[in-house]
């Protein structure tokens, strides 16, 4: 006869097995239609491009070489692929500036929301949530109508006589930046707000009792306490900003390419699927590095105060 301990162990094993069965459909769908195909991308990046798209099953490191280098068609020498490096640099720069801009705007907004009375807080949260769940394409399109030459900004400036000709904002990097900051702002505000809501204002009060200035309280007390929210928000903005597709297409007009447009090009007119795959993996690696930095940072600031 089995001892009580054995019975408990068997029950535990059954429980774990049931839990695996329960999660199997979700895991399977994600494996088939999200995670698994990423491995195929990795394989494709080492193959030879086919004449009409797709690939030939023949190993070639060329795609990886041409991520950053280009081969001279006459003497076969390698040089830095200026076009690709420019697009990498522009994408990273725009993603970083977008993250900083949304942080500069989002932090005070989250602070404002968290310092309202409990009743009105829900209303402010609701007002941030609506744009968050509204279609990104529609919001980008809304920005387009504001900043174009006949848009409201230029019209008002012209009527006021501040400018004599419309400022060309649309189809520039500035337009992409404005658009990304606009659409990703709620992604920054929400996690900072979540941290800020739990902030213990007695600590702030203690700071003032000890003669700290407002800025010092902000820098030494508030900021360190909500840092996890700030980091989470930055990651949530940086990842989609780096891979942004809709914003550069709509506001950059196709001339100012970002990484996603360069990747798309390889699967369209470029007919170089291996290069497109190698570029995709490179984007993934950049994102993974950013996430790693996040995990390490979050681990370090894991000490709870209060």
């Amino acid at each position: 006869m089995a001892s009580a301990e054995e019975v408990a162990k068997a029950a535990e094993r059954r429980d774990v097995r049931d839990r695996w069965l329960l999660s199997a459909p979700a895991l399977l769908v994600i494996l088939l239609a999200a995670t698994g195909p990423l491995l195929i991308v990795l394989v494709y990046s080492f193959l030879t491009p086919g004449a009409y798209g797709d690939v030939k099953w023949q190993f070639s490191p060329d795609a990886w070489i041409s991520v950053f280098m280009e081969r001279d068609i006459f003497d076969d020498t390698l040089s830095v692929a200026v076009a690709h490096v420019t697009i990498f640099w522009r994408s990273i720069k725009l993603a970083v500036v977008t993250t900083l801009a949304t942080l500069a705007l989002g932090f005070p907004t989250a602070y404002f929301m968290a310092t309202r009375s409990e009743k009105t807080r829900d209303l402010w949260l609701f007002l941030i949530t609506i744009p968050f769940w509204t279609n990104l394409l529609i919001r980008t399109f809304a920005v387009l109508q504001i900043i174009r030459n006949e848009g409201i900004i230029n019209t008002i400036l012209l009527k006021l006589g501040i400018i004599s000709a419309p400022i060309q904002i649309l189809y520039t990097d500035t337009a992409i930046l404005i658009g990304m900051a606009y659409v990703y702002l709620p992604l920054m505000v929400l996690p900072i707000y979540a941290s800020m809501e739990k902030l213990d204002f007695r600590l702030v009060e203690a700071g003032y009792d000890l003669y700290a200035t407002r800025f010092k309280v902000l820098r030494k007390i508030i900021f360190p306490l909500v840092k996890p929210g700030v980091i989470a928000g930055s990651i949530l903005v940086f990842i989609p900003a780096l891979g942004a597709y809709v914003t550069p297409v709509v506001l950059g007009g196709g001339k100012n390419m970002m990484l996603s447009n360069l990747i798309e090009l390889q699967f369209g007119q470029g007919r170089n699927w291996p290069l497109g795959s190698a570029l995709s993996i490179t984007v993934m690696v950049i994102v993974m590095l950013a996430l790693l930095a996040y995990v390490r940072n979050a681990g370090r600031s894991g000490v709870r105060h209060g």
Partner: protein
Amino acid sequence: MASNFSIKHQPGFTAIAATCFVVLYLPIIVLVAYAFNAASSTSEWGGFSLRWFQSAYQNTQVIDATLRSFQIGAIAAVLSTIFATMAALATTRTAPYPGLTFKYAAINQPLMVPEIVTGVALLIFFSRIKIFTGYSGLGYLIAAHTAFCIPFAYLPIRARLENMDLTLERAAADLYATPWKTFRRITLPLLWPGILAGLMLAFVISLDDVVITEFVKSGGQDTLPTYMLGQIRRGVTPEINAISTAFLLLSVAIVTLFFFVSRKRD
């Protein structure tokens, strides 16, 4: 001074917050206003009119794309919510067991990868399957949407479950309820608000998707967002404003519903 000194005040923060809220809503308001413009371009105001709503409604491409969006969204939302509910039941209210961390990572994986990379990966993978099976229907889009909706549906369901203790379920088991009966009569009714919130979230996420759909769709499988993107690329008519306005109205309605369902405590 003491009476006026607010510990919560930070100079300039309220002004920045106010600016943010205005800036967030102003473009949307302008977009909606121009949907009611009688003029045929969006650069002048020609008086109030519903002509663009009418023209969108009579545009068979728009109606087709809308119906396709709803079809994919509904199926993907239901499937992803069912799978996410099962996964949430399997990953909450338990002592850590081998594989639990893996499950969290796997379920959240679609959130960690830029959409463009997933889009490209699915383009490659599905194009192989298309050649292999000859099938090129909506199944691919539904599978892709279900996969990236799972982490979103999972969030509110898991949050709800974590706030439910096992007392009632144990009581039911003590009274000889079968596990299935306990689930149907106790767990499911308590979990319902979370499931509903997950379902709505998944539906909205599916309805909003542009990038993955753009890469996965075959010819003639435009959803409303990919149709709109194509139109915007070609040049803008107020018809797009009218479609956007209708779309916005729907999103706001769903978000409002979501907000009340997920905020309600028991």
